[in-house]
């Protein structure tokens, strides 16, 4: 029996304006397993923010359905406190202080005044806003506001958290700190994170949904999308003895290419191959041929997968 989905989207369609408008979401269907840290990937205009807005009930869909935590379409009365959201383009209410805003959000999501106070304090600590907690949001920098908004999404114990561009506008230190914070949510909540920073998503997430022009291009575990377990790239000092390598590893797909003046040997082992055993063989044969190994990388990056538009075979 498969694990229950934290989020299930089926045949979702949405377009803005009149009937002649293009579909922002075009028959979109996918599922995010419970407990996943899911990356939502796509170029500008792919429909990421619209998808978030429909999931959260900010926008009604034209067709299709959304099932959030197995409880049906998002409804504040049903999902209160169980779903946290960081909207991408929503301003924070500037006349609240950071602390009051979090307490307000906490109480509104069903916590008692005392619980909301404690949750707000924890959230302030977690995003390192102690020094500015009693300042009005109007006086906070963009990065501080982003951290505060993220803290509001993670307030309490949400089971599903939707984060639209959480690190946008953060400096490298803040972004790193936030990434660590998000990584710590593994096992506590299902996270769906939209970002253009694919390296960041690859670091944080173990599941991905790739969108383009309002459609789902592919979705699945990150390891499958990036072929982390199988594909190996060898960067070499000289051309390898390809025939000898193929003879030694007859079930491996081996090819050679030159990238920016560097020879690369691409190895795709069979599904059941022991990657360490084949590495030892290749290393020995390359050493015997006097070819040096400059770099060895397993899998392909998420960026390469996305740019290729399909998962590696």
């Amino acid at each position, binding site marked *: 029996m498969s694990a229950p989905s934290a989020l299930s989207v089926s045949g979702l369609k949405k377009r803005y304006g009149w009937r002649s408008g293009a579909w922002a979401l075009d028959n979109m269907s996918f599922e995010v397993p419970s407990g996943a840290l899911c990356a939502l990937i796509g170029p500008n205009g792919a429909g990421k923010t619209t998808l978030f807005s429909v999931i*959260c009930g900010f926008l*009604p869909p034209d067709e299709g359905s959304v099932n959030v935590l197995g409880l049906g379409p998002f409804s*504040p009365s049903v999902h209160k406190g169980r779903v946290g959201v960081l909207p991408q383009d*929503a*301003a924070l*209410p500037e006349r609240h202080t950071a602390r009051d805003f979090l307490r*307000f959000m906490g*109480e*509104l*999501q069903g916590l008692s005044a005392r619980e909301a106070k404690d949750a707000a304090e924890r959230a302030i600590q977690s995003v390192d806003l102690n020094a500015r907690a009693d300042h009005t949001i109007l006086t906070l920098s963009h990065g501080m506001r982003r951290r505060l908004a993220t803290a509001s999404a993670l307030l309490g114990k949400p089971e599903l958290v939707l984060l639209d561009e959480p690190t946008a506008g953060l400096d490298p230190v803040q972004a790193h700190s936030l990434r660590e914070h998000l990584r710590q949510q593994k096992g506590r909540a299902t996270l769906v994170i939209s970002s253009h920073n694919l390296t960041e998503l690859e670091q944080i997430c173990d599941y991905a949904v790739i969108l383009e022009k309002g459609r789902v291009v592919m979705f699945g575990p990150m390891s499958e999308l990036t072929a982390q377990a199988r594909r190996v790239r060898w960067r070499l000092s000289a051309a390898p003895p390809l025939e000898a390598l193929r003879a030694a590893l007859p079930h491996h797909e081996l090819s050679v290419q030159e990238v920016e003046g560097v020879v690369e040997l691409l190895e795709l082992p069979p599904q059941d191959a022991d990657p360490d055993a084949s590495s030892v063989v290749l290393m020995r044969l390359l050493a015997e041929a006097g070819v040096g190994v400059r770099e060895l990388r397993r899998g392909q990056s998420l960026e390469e997968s996305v740019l290729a538009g399909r998962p590696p075979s």
Partner: protein
Amino acid sequence: MTGPVRDSLIIARYMLARALRTRSALLLVALFGLVASGSAYGFTRILLVLENQVARVLRVPKTETPGALMDAVKTDVDFLDMMRAMVGGDEALLQWALELPLLTVTHFWTGLGTLPFIAAAAGAEAVSSDIHDRSIRFELVRAGRLEIVAGRFLGLSLLLGVAVFGSTLGVWAVAMLGMINNPPLEQMTTLLSMSPRLWMWCLPFCGLGVAASQLTANVNLARLIALAAVAFTWIAYGVIEAEVLDGWMQAVAESAQVLLPQAWIGALWGPGWGWLTPAGVFVALAWCAWSLGYPIMARRNL
């Protein structure tokens, strides 16, 4: 306490707390306080003119500070005509009003005229600006749209209460500094006793503002719609009272008049607790008024 009611009360509480901490509440108090104090000062000048007319008739020296000849002024025909107009021509109400400090009556009258516009303008900001910058989304994932609008209306209602009660201080100060023979305690207690009536009076108009606020994300447009709606109620009331409509139209209009807050002004005056009836009507009208905009709010993209 059930979820929706709890949510609305939380939203109202935080809205009021935020407004009290920042300039918005101060602005509202200052705005109505300025209008009320300015009007009160204006009436002291009118009173001064009336007193000096009476002084001329009585052949006594002119006064520099209003209030010295108050008892004599209360028998002056011009003054009585002015007061009669204020209470809608009702002789019993006139006698009651004459027993009150003059500035209490004029403050009440000023509130009846100006508060609808102030309340509607304040109500127009209820959700439109938060829809515009999408800050409402933080609340939307935690509370329903109806609860949010109801909470905002409640918060604004409380804020208007603060403004109405706060403005009495300005009027009292004018009464103490600009008039003589005005017992401070009586002036303050009568002002305070009239404030709940004014507060209730402004609620339907606040409701109209909140309704307008749900129609558009443009705050200025929402304000314009709200003020136009208030103006319409006054015009409609005037047209019905003037009986300029033909036959059945006048009959229908008179039947529908009970839906206009202005139709209940007469019952808002007077001693005792009779004003609680129109107050209840105002609360009901207020909730109906803001609900007018909700069908749009319930369906709009936020």
